């Protein structure tokens, strides 16, 4: 059920109020007209007064009764000796013998009696009002509702609904803040927690429980991250010994092959460390990096290696600073991975270009190699995937790392064919 709390509260309040209105009306009715209800003396007396006032002696000497066609009550007029003078369609019973004035109940009917000296002489009047008839019940209810309950209850009902809705809206506002905070909790920012201040009591327990759960997750997460970093660190010294030992063996063919193997292992260890560092990467809001300086830095660092392998590196478009919101060290790593990758694929004697673009900010690396086959492009950024498994270089982590770093910066990594052949990788930042 995805009904909003506001809707549910309004609906239930409406039900409660309707029930209260009905019960109140019913109670009023029961009180007035129920089994022990009072006889409507006022109404009956008024009816008797009207009857008495309507009696007169006609010009012919006979008594006359002037009443509307439907006076709202049943009536009968008799002489003191019991002879009927006037009566309505369902006249009430005559007064019991010896009664001069009084009221009585007879089933659904209450009857009032009075003996009067009217203009038409001495007569016995009786007036009857049916109280339990269908008409009477409903009309009394209707009039009670219209005149007394509705003016009070309706505004109260509306006010309750509005107050309920506003209270909920106000009370649930912290939920939006909590949702926003939750959206910011990522592997890179696993230490963040939901805000627990200024919360209604009902939410405090929930938020505390969620934060405690996050603590436990973060701990496990940290342990795994630390393990990767520790393992990589621990591998470095043995690898250093191995590398140094191989260096003392000179240029024998076996030594060269072993050196390649060790170099590959070293690279894998380095990349595992990069992954571990990447998991902990948090962008500070004020961190900026100059893409132009970065391009020159990476090119400077890799140029000796490139020249030694008879390849060239050039930087294009880095004349003016291009500032982006980003972490220098991790972007350095990403660009370095792309350039190393390009150096591995560009043909001997060609140049790898690092192109800096200002608007929108972007870094491109193009090589002059065979390019990337269309079928391989989707798999390219997966961990441990390599197009050519027989090619010894790299563990297949480099591009996955580039993509993770880009994602942490809200940037996109794309691959296309460079004009004139070769592959071109681009990290495009948001403006």
């Amino acid at each position, binding site marked *: 059920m995805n009904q909003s709390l506001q809707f549910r509260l309004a609906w239930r309040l409406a039900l409660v109020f309707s029930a209260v209105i009905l019960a109140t009306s019913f109670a009023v009715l029961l009180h007035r007209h129920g089994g022990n209800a009072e006889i409507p003396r006022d109404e009956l007396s008024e009816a008797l007064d009207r009857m008495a006032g309507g009696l007169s002696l006609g010009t012919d000497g006979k008594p006359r009764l002037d009443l509307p066609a439907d006076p709202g009550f049943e009536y009968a007029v008799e002489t003191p000796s019991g002879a009927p003078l006037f009566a309505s369609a369902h006249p009430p019973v005559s007064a019991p013998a010896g009664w001069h004035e009084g009221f009585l109940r007879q089933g659904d009917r209450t009857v009032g009696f009075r003996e009067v000296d009217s203009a038409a002489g001495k007569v016995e009047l009786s007036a009857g009002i049916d109280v339990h008839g269908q008409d009477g019940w409903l009309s009394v209810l209707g009039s009670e509702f219209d005149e007394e309950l509705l003016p009070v209850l309706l505004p109260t009902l509306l006010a309750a609904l509005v107050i309920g809705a506003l209270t909920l809206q106000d009370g649930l506002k912290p939920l939006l803040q909590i949702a926003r905070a939750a959206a910011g909790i990522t592997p890179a920012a696993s230490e963040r927690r939901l805000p627990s201040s200024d919360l209604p009591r009902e939410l405090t327990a929930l938020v505390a429980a969620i934060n405690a759960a996050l603590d436990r997750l973060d701990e496990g997460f940290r342990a795994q991250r630390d393990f990767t970093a520790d393992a990589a660190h621990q591998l470095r*010294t043995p690898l250093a010994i191995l590398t140094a030992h191989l260096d003392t063996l000179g240029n024998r063919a076996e030594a060269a092959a072993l050196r390649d193997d060790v170099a590959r292992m070293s690279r894998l260890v380095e990349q595992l460390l990069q992954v571990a560092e990447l998991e902990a990467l948090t962008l500070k809001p004020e961190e900026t990096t100059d893409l132009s300086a970065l391009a020159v830095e990476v090119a400077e660092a890799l140029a000796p290696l490139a020249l030694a392998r008879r390849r060239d590196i050039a930087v294009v478009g880095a004349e003016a600073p291009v500032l982006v919101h980003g972490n220098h060290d991790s972007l350095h790593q990403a660009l370095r991975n792309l350039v190393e990758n390009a150096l591995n694929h560009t043909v001997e004697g060609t140049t790898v270009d690092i192109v800096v673009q200002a608007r929108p900010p972007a870094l491109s690396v193009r090589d002059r190699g065979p390019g990337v086959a269309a079928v391989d492009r989707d798999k390219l950024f997966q961990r441990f995937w390599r197009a050519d498994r027989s090619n010894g270089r790299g563990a297949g982590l480099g591009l996955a790392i580039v993509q993770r770093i880009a994602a942490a910066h809200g940037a996109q990594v794309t691959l296309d064919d460079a004009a004139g052949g070769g592959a071109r990788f681009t990290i495009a930042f948001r403006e």
Partner: protein
Amino acid sequence: MRLLLVEDNDRLAQFVVKGLSDAGFTVDWVGRLEEAGAAVATATFDAIVLDLGMPDGDGGEWLKHRRASGDKVPVLVLTARAGTSDKVKGLNSGADDYLAKPFEMAELVARLKALLRRPGGALGLTLELGKLSFDSVHREASVAGRSLALSRSELTLLELLLRRAGRVVARRLLEEGLYGFDDEVGPNSLEAHVSRLRKKLDAADAGIQIHTLRGIGYLAGERAG
């Protein structure tokens, strides 16, 4: 050239000592910071190769103390902690360069030579590359004893390139070096200077190649073959 190697791993230390000796250095090796302190107190070293993680303390802290007491000996830091942030930490503690384990001996030797080639470094007085010898005191370049006729700005350029031989010297650095001769600096004057220097080096058969790295800078190396 005398070096102090501060490294607690015996096996690694043995190979590094051998590799550096083969490259022509005299190497003293200690396995603890305490011994390192004693060594620098009793002998003079041209450079120190320092492992950060030592059994009796943090190499970085030790270096900070040395620097605070006015020790200016070039220090190259070795470490198994290779995160980029660790790198910055190493340089902040006063290290002149940084090398992550595992490393190749050739890289270590090249970096040490670059440190020693700095002004004031053990190799800083006479810079040598290929067949060329550069006397940084008398500001004179010669090939096989014959002096080269170079202008002041060409000598400045050559010195900057030689001090970082085998590594890239950024355009900005070279341009700043040339600004002292502002009458000669125009929009393309760096290219013009390098081109003239190249011709003179080739004419003298100096055995030096100056690579142009477009948009980055220049790199001087020995001409292959």
